[in-house]
């Protein structure tokens, strides 16, 4: 398969051309080239996926530097169905975002398209690479482009601050990753993940390996936005242009999770074999905190994109729990859930872009009743809310039932309850906004926080528009349709389960990368249980109830006893205070998170 490197190479080349000709190329040419390249990468990645499916992963060695006597010196793309599938999914979202951009921007030059294509190349490389250092380089490339895209509207305050916070937080994470790589190289003399895994073997994990693991994990969790290293996410997602936020929430954040999973099952599964239980507890602690923190913050927002950003954080908590269960089933659940969540969240960000484009504000209260002008947008928004609550039988539901099953198998019977809370709050918040768009509930907020920030975007243009291009509604509609039907395609979910089973086979990975022998232990598939319907139905009903409470609950508040209400108000207010927008605070929290992960690893995993 000599096309393996093309998903990285073609967009990079096209981006360079776009920059070179940007003073001559008309807008329509830029749009056509960028979208065409996106579609080409979709096709290429789908070919890789088709080739690797049915248990045929392969390693492509750059420049023909194959392993000699089973020692890898060259750089490989190690492509398995999970990596290729992730790349395909990513390319689909990038293409959708590029199509949406045709009408979203009034004026945009080739630089935007070039940045998007470099972003595409970096994410493709990140999904496909088998080399640890390349993983870090693609991480940084993805980062650098993402910082620039966040601050794309460089004349506005929000994007500037969001870009700075994003860049500094993620750079610190990247430096932790570099240090971790250096330590692993010191121990093994290798940079290929399979080679590192083979060299570490099943020797007991000593402090050096544990410190390396903690540094790598906290670095990638920074990108994934796990609490308490998540602060940058809400700032960046809220201020980036809508099509960029689509990619941040839909793929970039999930790639951080992917890296943690990939590193664990290629490198650390051997040395940490005896301590699976303890590592599981540590990761699930992080995941649970993230899921709950995100859920509460999500529901308390009135800035629409910030609301969606915190909803992503809550879902990241579920992903961290799913990976943290350290089982094939948990991994499969995350993979299915990522697809459903990504398509839904992408559509929701696009719809908030529609609202911003039309009404010049994405403040929930400013938009009160405005949805009547755009009924289809409200319908799609509400569908997105229902999907986020994992309503049966959309894609998210299948992911969640796998996660529930994995939690029960792994000895965490309370974890499904956390998932239900996360689904309820994130779905409920979106449904509440849909209701407000229709003019339900009060039009005045209880407090005045955030109003200015939500209105400031696009401040230079004054009047609301009279017209929304149908294309801007069509793209999110198609994505939502995808989020509903992908899980229903016969063979899709069981296929992902088998791919996840192969992904988590530590020895098999080393064998197929270094020796070219493909042999997997048989992987199993599972069925949706009856209680899954009960959980998911309960979460959806809970989301609707929460939305109703958010819309009509204010009179109720007066009847609640002060003693009951006050602690909640103080706690939520305190939580919100922590998101100060001050980069120094964020890095202090980052340090605390890194210390917590490193400390817990050194104490419990030895």
């Amino acid at each position, binding site marked *: 398969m000599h096309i393996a490197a093309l998903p990285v190479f073609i967009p990079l080349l096209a981006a360079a051309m776009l920059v070179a000709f940007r003073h001559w190329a008309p807008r329509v040419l830029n749009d056509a080239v960028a979208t065409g390249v996106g579609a080409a990468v979709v096709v290429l990645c789908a070919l890789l996926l088709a080739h690797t499916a049915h248990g045929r992963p392969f390693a492509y060695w750059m420049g023909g530097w194959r392993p000699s006597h089973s020692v890898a010196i060259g750089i490989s793309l190690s492509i398995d169905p999970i990596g290729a599938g992730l790349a395909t999914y990513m390319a689909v979202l990038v293409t959708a975002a590029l199509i949406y951009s045709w009408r979203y921007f009034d004026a945009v030059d080739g630089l935007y398209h070039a940045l998007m294509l470099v972003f595409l190349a970096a994410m493709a490389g990140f999904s496909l690479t088998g080399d640890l250092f390349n993983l870090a380089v693609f991480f940084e490339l993805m980062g650098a482009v993402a910082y620039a895209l966040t601050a794309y509207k460089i*004349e506005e305050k929000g994007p500037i601050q969001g870009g700075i916070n994003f860049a500094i937080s993620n750079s610190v994470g990247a430096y932790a990753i570099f240090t971790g790589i250096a330590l692993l190289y010191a121990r093994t003399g290798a940079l290929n993940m399979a080679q590192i895994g083979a060299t570490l073997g099943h020797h007991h994990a000593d402090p050096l390996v544990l410190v390396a693991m903690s540094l790598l994990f906290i670095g990638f969790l920074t990108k994934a936005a796990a609490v308490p290293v998540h602060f940058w996410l809400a700032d960046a997602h809220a201020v980036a242009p809508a099509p960029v936020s689509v990619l941040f929430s839909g793929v970039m954040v999930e790639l951080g999770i992917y890296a943690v999973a990939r590193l664990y099952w290629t490198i650390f599964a051997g040395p940490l074999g005896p301590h699976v239980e303890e590592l599981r507890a540590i990761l699930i602690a992080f995941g649970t905190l993230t899921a709950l923190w995100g859920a509460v913050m999500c529901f308390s927002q009135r800035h629409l994109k910030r609301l969606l950003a915190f909803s992503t954080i809550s879902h990241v908590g579920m992903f961290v729990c799913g990976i943290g269960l350290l089982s094939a089933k948990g991994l499969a659940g995350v993979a299915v859930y990522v697809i459903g969540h990504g398509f839904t969240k992408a559509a929701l960000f696009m719809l908030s872009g529609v609202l911003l484009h039309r009404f010049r504000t994405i403040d929930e209260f400013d938009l009160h009743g405005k949805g009547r002008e755009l009924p289809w947008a409200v319908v799609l928004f509400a569908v997105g809310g229902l999907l986020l609550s994992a309503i049966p039988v959309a894609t998210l539901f299948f992911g969640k039932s796998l996660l529930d099953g994995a939690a029960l198998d792994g000895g965490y019977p309370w974890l499904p309850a956390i998932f239900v809370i996360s689904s309820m709050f994130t779905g409920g918040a979106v449904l509440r906004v849909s209701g407000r768009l229709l003019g339900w509930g009060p039009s005045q907020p209880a407090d005045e926080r955030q109003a200015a920030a939500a209105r400031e975007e696009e401040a230079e243009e004054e009047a609301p528009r009279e017209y929304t291009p149908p294309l801007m509604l069509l793209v999110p509609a198609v994505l939502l349709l995808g989020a509903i039907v992908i899980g229903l395609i016969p063979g899709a979910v069981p296929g992902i389960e088998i791919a996840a089973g192969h992904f988590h086979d530590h020895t098999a990975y080393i064998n197929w990368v270094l020796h070219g022998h493909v042999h997997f232990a048989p992987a199993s598939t599972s069925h949706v249980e009856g209680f899954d319907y009960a959980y998911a139905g309960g979460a959806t009903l809970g989301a609707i109830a929460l939305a109703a409470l958010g819309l009509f609950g204010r009179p109720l508040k007066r009847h609640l006893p002060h003693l009951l209400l006050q602690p909640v108000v103080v706690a939520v207010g305190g939580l919100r205070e922590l998101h100060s*927008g001050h980069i120094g605070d964020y890095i202090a929290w980052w340090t605390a998170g890194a210390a917590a992960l490193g400390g817990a690893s050194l104490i419990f995993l030895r």
Partner: protein
Amino acid sequence: MSFLPFAVAAWLFVIGLYGIVSSNNLVRTIISLTVVQSSTYLVLLGVGYVSGGKGAIFADITQVSKAVDPVVQVLVLTDIVIEATVTGLLLALAVQAHKRFGSLDPHDLRALRD
């Protein structure tokens, strides 16, 4: 091999973080970030150092003697390229921040308070 480069690297990483946390000027924040990154150079070079080793350039040398590990040096070069990119981008953002907020103090950047 000496323990010293790693001790210095750990110190740089932590003091750089402290610099970011305590900074009241964005330029200082960004320089502190490069201090954090400098620690990665030291770790990488320290890992590849061989005492008495020469630079790993064998093009016109027939007798191969002890040499330091060239791989980590290449990694450091990549790392430096990344630093140049990120620092340049951040400083450009700091200039914009000064224009729009009229201040370089992170405390005065209040567009994104929750």
